[in-house]
């Protein structure tokens, strides 16, 4: 059990945290969501077919947990302490250098149906097929959301330009 936990943490924690943070935009809630996803995975009795399936399951579950938290009445009545949504991009520690924080900030402000496909495609480098599997959508839907989400990002960046 301990070995499995350690393997899961090493393999997926950083990536799942980034995905959770892109939805929650604060550290504490992102960490809670990831832990909850791991717990559900450990309790889940269904056999996992392969590593790709395992990863997809964990990402999907993490996103669902985030969305559940965001929808909860308690969350909507509270504001995270001492954290600003405006600079959320600075708290996502990507394994590569991103020169343009403004774009990532804009991506994090997108509505959820654009944010997750765009974040997974550009910042976690998933293919359209993989995103379709993770989000349980058709590939065509993912492509459309990527295209429309891109237009929304452009709009956000234009609005913010000084």
């Amino acid at each position, binding site marked *: 059990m301990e070995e499995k936990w350690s393997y899961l943490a090493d393999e997926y924690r950083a990536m799942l945290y980034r995905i959770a943070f892109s939805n929650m935009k604060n550290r504490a809630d992102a960490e809670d969501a990831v832990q909850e996803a791991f717990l559900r995975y450990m309790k889940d009795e269904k056999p996992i077919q392969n590593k790709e399936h395992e990863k997809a399951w964990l990402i999907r579950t993490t996103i669902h947990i985030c969305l559940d938290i965001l929808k909860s009445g308690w969350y909507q009545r509270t504001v995270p302490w001492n954290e600003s949504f405006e600079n959320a991009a600075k708290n996502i520690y*990507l*394994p*590569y*250098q*991103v020169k*343009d924080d403004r*774009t990532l900030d*804009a*991506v994090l402000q997108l509505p959820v149906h654009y944010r997750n496909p*765009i974040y997974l*495609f*550009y*910042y976690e*480098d998933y*293919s*359209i097929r993989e995103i379709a599997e993770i989000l349980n959508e058709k*590939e065509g839907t993912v*492509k459309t959301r*990527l*295209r429309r989400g*891109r237009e929304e*990002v*452009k709009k956000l*960046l234009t609005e913010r330009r000084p």
Partner: protein
Amino acid sequence: MGIQEVQGNCNAQAYQKNRNAGRGEGFQKRFLQNLKDRDEAKQAAADAQVTVGKIGMKPGIRVSAAATQEAMQAVEVRHMSYEESDHVKIAVTEGYTLKGKREESADAKVYVEAKYDDGRLEAYQVEINKISANTNQKIEQFALETMNEV
């Protein structure tokens, strides 16, 4: 009725004469236009072959014919991750990502992988020494940046 028939024949002959004359001119005009169109179409197809070649076209990243022939060569996609890359460019507003890695086997060569939001995945090997100094080609510029990152 008889008079009408005679008049009718005269009109018919005049019509035939005019019709043929018109047809001849029209035919010649259309024939010349067709020849011109065909030559233009042939030229356009030849240009497209040179420009597109092995490398696909995308509004976001334009690949010029010169760039295609000189510095860039389309290669098989290796599905390189961000972690494996020496340099990454994420262009959300333009709909693509670029990943670059300096080739270990060859000097001054960079492998570049491009992923587009319509699902296409393309890979190029770029010879740095063949890139023109004032290139405005996105992939060549990215290859130069990758070389400088290392």
